[in-house]
Each structure stands twice: as C-alpha cells, then as structure tokens.
C-alpha cells in the first residue's frame, strides 16, 4: 500500500478526541512529572510533545516491564491454573518515531520464532502505530547506518510528515487504512509526499555519518573477534547497570518468576531482564559463564549486530542512540561501532 492522504493539525486534534470518545486508548510522547518526555497515555493531541526523542521506547507497550502470565492455586498436591486473557482492547499510538516503530517490527521476528508469543501479538493486533517522520536527530542517532531512515515506514501503520497546515499521511498497512477509513471525516486532500521532501532530506542529513553504514563489516568483525582485547577495554567504563537495555527499543530479554502471594496462591510473571548483569547468566551451581563485564558488553554488541542478523537476517538495533544518551558512564555505541569498522577496515585498532 502506498496511498497518501492529508490531515490538518486541527483534524489531528479532533481525531484524538474522536478516538478517546470512542473508548479507544491513545498514547504519545508527552511530558512526565520530572520534565522528561515519555510515550505515555494522552487525553488530547495538545499533550503530545514532538521535540526531541522520548526517553522510553515503544517496547513497553507490547512487552511490559512486568506482566502476569497466569495465576496458580495449590490444594494439597493439586495445582490449578487460572489463565489470563491475551485479547486486548484497541488503542492507537500517535507520534511514534520511525526508529521505535521499526523496532517493534524487528521484534516480531523473535516473538514469532519457535513459538508465537500470545501477549505480544495480542497487543500488536490491538494497536495501531501512527508514526511521525523524524525531524532529525542528535550526534548519537544513526538509523541510516542500520538500514533505516528518519522517514522509514517500517513497523508503522501510518507515517505522517509535516507539510503546510497539517501532515501528509502515508498509509502503510491495512490497519492504517482502517484507521483512516473509520475516521474518514478527519482526513482529506492536501499536499503530496513531494511537499515533505525538504523536511525529510534535512532530517536525513542530521543523522548520517555518525556511524559508517557498514553493518556487514561490523557483523563480520564481531563474529571473528570474540576474544579481542577491545571488549575488555570498553567494559572498563561499564557499571553493568543495564540502563542501555531498559532504554533500548529492541532489547527484549525477560525473566520468568513465580511470585507466591499466600501459602497456596501465586502468579507467574515475566519481567524485563538484561544481559548486562551478572545474575543474567548465573547458574544454580554458582558457575557463571559470563562472569565479568567484558563478556556482557560484548554480548550486547554481539547479539544486536551478529547473532540476530544470523538468525533473523535483521539487525537488532534501529540506531535510536538511546543507549548512548542514557549511559551514566558515557559509553557510546556510535563510538564502538565506528571503531569496529575502523579496525575491520584496517584504519585503526584497539587503543
């Protein structure tokens, strides 16, 4: 599908009001109590803040930090399971960033790999993602180096790019079309895609060149340098806090725990986890195959740029740069990737 339509800013406001009135949840980038911008539930389009990248990603809309899977009850030696529904009411995410929308699509692969993850796809089915073309990033952005772009449509149902008194709407999916159709009065004729070209070019220019666009080179080097001293060097700085994984739109590892609530009842939950901590790989025996931060730092790069590509032919990174922005110790993925490319192409080595 590649039809376009147009929505005026006024109608966008009306659209949010209409959706809310219809009982459909709407989320978008909005201000939090501590002054940051997060994707969160909104009441009106005026809540939406389009400047700057939201602190969190869209990941938690599909994989919440904690999620009950089922509840169990024991009586004597019997165990009863109480299922939890995986059907979800409809909702719309408005103002997603292309890098965040793409991440959801990247994750669909692992979530539908050997087993279809019901809660994930339950939420996916219920959610329409309305993406706004990115106005441009900062020095940590590198979406174009991982095959995406500030105006990429991957993972989006609709892609909006500003033009005149509104937005040119690219209808990307059936779900997107359905949203337009259901709210047809809010959409109408207007400028075409070409009117947004300058906007898109400017955005693209702002993110290019931060990391060489050589994912193949990176993958090959990482595959071949498991024991390279480079990993030990970069891990010196790392606290192992996992802030990068929490902020990352594609880090999706989780832990499954049983939480007893009484003697006989409890809940099985899955919670976010991260490969950056030692307990992630700790064995019950006490042995830990990834026993220092060196291995953990390597694992993160390895998984994103070599393992995932090998298994799914896709990079587990959308170049959003959040890990660099959030790192309390100044670890920077653009620096790491740039150095890897340099080492691989013979233009530098580990310091």
């Amino acid at each position: 599908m590649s039809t376009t339509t147009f929505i005026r800013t006024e109608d966008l406001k009306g659209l949010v009001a209409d959706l809310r009135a219809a009982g459909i949840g709407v989320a978008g980038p909005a201000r939090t109590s501590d002054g940051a911008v997060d994707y969160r539930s909104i009441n009106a389009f005026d809540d939406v803040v389009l400047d700057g990248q939201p602190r969190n990603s869209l990941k938690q809309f599909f994989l919440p930090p904690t999620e009950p899977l089922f509840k169990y009850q024991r009586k004597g030696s019997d165990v009863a399971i109480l299922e939890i529904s995986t059907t979800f009411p409809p909702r719309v995410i408005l103002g997603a960033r292309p890098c965040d929308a793409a991440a959801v699509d990247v994750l669909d692969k692992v979530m539908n790999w050997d087993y279809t993850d019901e809660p994930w796809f339950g939420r996916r089915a219920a959610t329409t993602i309305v993406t706004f073309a990115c106005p441009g990033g900062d020095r940590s952005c590198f979406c174009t180096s991982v095959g995406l772009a500030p105006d990429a449509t991957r993972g989006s149902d609709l892609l909006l790019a500003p033009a005149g008194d509104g937005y040119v709407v690219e209808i990307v999916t059936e779900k997107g079309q359905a949203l337009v159709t259901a709210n047809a009065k809010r959409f109408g004729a207007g400028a075409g895609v070409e009117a947004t070209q300058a906007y898109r070019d400017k955005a693209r220019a702002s993110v290019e060149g931060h990391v060489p666009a050589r994912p193949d080179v990176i993958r090959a080097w990482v595959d071949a340098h498991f024991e390279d001293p480079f990993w030990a060097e970069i891990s010196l700085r790392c606290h192992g806090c996992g802030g990068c994984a929490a902020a990352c739109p594609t880090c999706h590892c989780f832990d499954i725990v049983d939480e007893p609530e009484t003697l006989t009842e409890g809940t099985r939950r899955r919670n976010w986890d991260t490969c950056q901590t030692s307990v992630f790989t700790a064995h019950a025996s006490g042995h830990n195959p990834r026993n220092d931060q060196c291995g953990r730092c390597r694992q993160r790069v390895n998984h994103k740029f070599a393992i995932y590509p090998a298994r799914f032919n896709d990079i587990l990174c959308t170049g959003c740069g959040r890990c660099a922005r959030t790192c309390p110790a100044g670890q920077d993925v653009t620096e790491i990737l740039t150095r890897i490319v340099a080492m691989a192409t013979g233009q530098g080595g580990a310091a």
Partner: protein
Amino acid sequence: MDATTPAVAGGFEPRITAFVCNWCTYTGADLAGTSRLQMASNVRIIRLPCTGRIDPMFITKAFERGADGIIVSGCHPADCHYNAGNYHARRRFAIFRELMDFLGVDTGRITFSWVSASEGGKWRDVVNDAVTRVRALGPFTDYRKLVVDPVATATGVVPPEHVGKEVPA
C-alpha cells in the same frame, strides 16, 4: 470500644503480625497466658531469638502478605539476653520507622515496645492498643493495592492493561 470487644458484624478486624524476641517478650506473652489475661485475638506471633535478628524486610514482607499492623517487641535496654541485640535493633528500627513515615506509611501501624518476661500485663496492653489503633486506621489497602490481583484480571474484572507496570493507553 476496647480491643477485646468483638467488632460489629462485618466490621474490620485487623491482622497484626508480631516479631518478638524469645527471652523477654515471648516469655512475657507466655506469662500473660499463664495469668489468663484476656486480649484481642488479632495478633500472630513470630518468635525470633532476639530483636537484633529482626530484619526490616520481615515487616515489608508481612505488609505484602496483608498484615494491617506490625508489632516489634523485645527486651528492655540493658536486659538483652545477648547484651546488645536490642540496641542494634533500636537504631535499625528508629531509622526504618522514619523511612516508613517518609514513604507515607502511617507509623501507627507499626508498634515498637520493650516487654520483659515479667510484663504479661504490658504485653496485653501493647496488643490491645495496637489492635485498637490499627482498627481505627482501617485495612492497609494501600499496600495490598500495590499489585492488582491477577485473578480479578483473569475473570475480566480488571483489564490486564491495568495490571502492574503496563502503560495504559
């Protein structure tokens, strides 16, 4: 209404967990028993060797498990069977109590006392006062509400989107 008066039908009966030391308060509670001192039946005692053994985590866990109130009780200063366990406990719980207060827990729910092995009567008073106080404060629903029961979720009473940390949208 004193603590031993049965509550009106359907009225709130607080659940109180008491962490007490073996040598003074537990024995004092034994004495209350042998003296047949009648008291409210809302308190469940967990016996520890010493107040020094009581970890603040016991208290948060008891709240998590639905306790409406807590009693921590041990030997009077200078009477500790282990010399100093109660002194360490006193500092620990002075800080813990201020922390709880700061986090918005009504500290009326947490009673600290020194009850010696000879103070059966004091133990009864501590129990009855705590029950009366917590009964007035009502059930500690704030703590219980921290996690919505997923059974209610499963039966459709609460949509799963509102469980736990999920961002509602």
